[in-house]
């Protein structure tokens, strides 16, 4: 397995602001890698460090084994799909797509053909003569994608590429991006603040907060076993059990996560753990009822199948779950 992008203790400080603070990551060739986090968490700065728009103030970056520090963006075989597409307004769509080939000195006829092929790949054949201003947001997004891919980059960086699209288009583009990445075999690094997008598309996810990676792993692991309270809150909807409940359940960790779907309102079966409390709220969500149980002041959400009857508010209940569904976390 070749390493496409390597971050070794990389920092990017702007004065007193630590936008990126000691990040380590290793992205494999051909991987679909997502960087997930709220705005200001450092994910976009990491992307800009890969593209070369920013230089690290500390640490070491390698792209396909080559040192990236001090290498300007125009000498990296890395291309970016910008958040608001950054298409050149004074050039036709074809010239936009062919731009990368033009500045590299590829002949006119050859680059026209390559650009038309790239436009066909993103399902916009015959749009070459139009101007960016004449296209819809979704179409511009595809042009931006074609303009990056026509250069056959080793790593494609995508900065919230779907953020400006409406929901339906976004879901469609998610599938297309995924299949495009599979067929091209190019390493995709994807920045998003939408955990659903990251979970559904990525091979691996790095969850960012305050310039640091909180957790890095496969989507299932990040979702089911959040390591910190931040990840539990930001990715999915896990319950965070406080230390006193952890102690009661035999854990030494300062807190633990427990997914609502893993809990049932019933007496414990063999090997299961249980807690008792009172029902403090419930709401109907379609396939499930969300029941909030108050356990000694800690609110535990339970996703109860809609077929089961919901206990009345204030009634005492016992909630049970398999022992391996309880995951200790690092912070309180």
């Amino acid at each position: 397995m070749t390493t496409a992008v390597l971050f070794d203790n990389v920092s990017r400080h702007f004065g007193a602001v630590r936008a990126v603070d000691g990040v380590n990551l290793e992205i494999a060739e051909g991987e679909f890698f997502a960087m997930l986090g709220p705005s200001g968490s450092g994910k976009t700065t990491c992307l800009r460090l890969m593209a070369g728009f920013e230089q690290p103030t500390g640490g070491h970056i390698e792209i396909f084994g080559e040192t990236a520090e001090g290498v300007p963006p125009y000498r990296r075989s890395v291309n970016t799909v910008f958040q608001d597409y950054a298409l050149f307004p004074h050039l036709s769509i074809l010239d936009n797509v062919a731009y990368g080939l033009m500045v590299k000195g590829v002949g006119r006829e050859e680059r026209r053909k390559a650009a038309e092929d790239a436009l066909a790949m993103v399902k916009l054949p015959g749009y070459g003569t139009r101007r960016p201003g004449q296209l819809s947001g979704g179409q511009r997004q595809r042009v931006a994608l074609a303009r990056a891919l026509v250069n056959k980059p080793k790593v494609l960086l995508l900065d919230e590429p779907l953020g400006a699209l409406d929901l339906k288009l976004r879901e469609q583009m998610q599938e297309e991006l995924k299949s495009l990445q599979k067929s091209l075999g190019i390493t995709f690094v994807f920045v998003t603040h939408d955990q659903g997008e990251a979970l559904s598309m990525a091979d691996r996810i790095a969850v960012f907060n305050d310039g640091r990676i909180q957790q890095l792993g496969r989507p299932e692991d990040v979702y089911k076993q959040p390591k910190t309270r931040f990840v539990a809150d930001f990715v999915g909807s896990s319950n965070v059990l406080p230390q006193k409940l952890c102690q009661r359940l035999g854990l030494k960790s300062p807190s633990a996560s427990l997914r609502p779907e893993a809990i049932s309102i019933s007496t414990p079966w063999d090997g299961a753990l249980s807690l008792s409390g009172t029902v403090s709220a419930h709401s109907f969500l379609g396939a499930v009822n969300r029941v909030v149980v108050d356990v000694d002041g800690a609110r535990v959400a339970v996703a109860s199948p809609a077929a089961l009857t919901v206990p009345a508010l204030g009634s005492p209940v016992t909630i049970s779950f398999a022992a391996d569904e309880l995951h200790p976390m690092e912070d309180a």
Partner: protein
Amino acid sequence: MTAFAEPLVLPERRGPAGRLSDFFWKHPHLLLTVLLAPPLLWLGVVYLGALFALLLQSFFSIDDFSGLINYEFTLATYRQLLSEANLDIILRTVLMAATVTVASAVIAFPIAYYAARYAQGKWKVLFYLGVMLPLWSSYLVKIYAWKLILAKEGILTWIFEKLHLLWLLDAWLALPVVGGNSLSVSYTGTFIVFVYVWLPFMILPIQAALERVPGNLIEASSDLGGTPAQTFRHVLFPLALPGIVAGSIFTFSLTLGDYIIPQIVGSSRLFIGQAVYAQQGTAGNIPLAAAFTVVPIVIMGAYLFMAKRMGAFDAL
């Protein structure tokens, strides 16, 4: 319905101002007419009308013997305009305007680029102040100040002398056409003062155009493999071109029409503006003066037409 409920439609506003508001709300076109009529009248009748009357004069001729204007349509004045001496004046002025424009654009671009891309907060204020401040002081004072600066006994000669570079200045002044006895009586001096006086009119439009170029376009070009020189040529320059053209309209036309700078600083050879001044004032040849004023108008028209054909306004 309770007795205290607000009525759905509020009563009409009282007073003339209120009635006027209601009236204009009902007749929005009338408001536009009222607002636009005075400036349109001024522009249409007073300004364009006067210009038209002036152009009309150029088709009359002057009786060489009596000095009276002959109000018969003729092209004789234009024939006179195209005489060798007068063509000299036109060529001299156009060349000066062109070099002043190119030099202004070259000097203004980096300044405008810095102001648009990097200057923030108090630096931006300082930039505007620096660019605008010369415009606040009297035009004549500035030109006479330059005459002193450029004079043989002036500070510029003194600086060259202290730097032991007087030979350089002398070599430049020894050149034909651009040289002369001193900078203040050479075309070089005229050129320097023109560039100084019109530079703000070039900086501001370029700065406005560059400010509208999103920073990520420059990053995108770089990301796609464009070196800084290629990014300038293929992205930054085309997008700044409308601003450069706008600025060049100012510098070019202002130079074409100015008659004070070449009179105070420079050789005694005439520019178009001076020719107009001399013809209509001293010589009383209003038809020829009018014909001279047609020249800058035609040149500017041709210039804008060419700029449009070359796509200078495509990015607008």
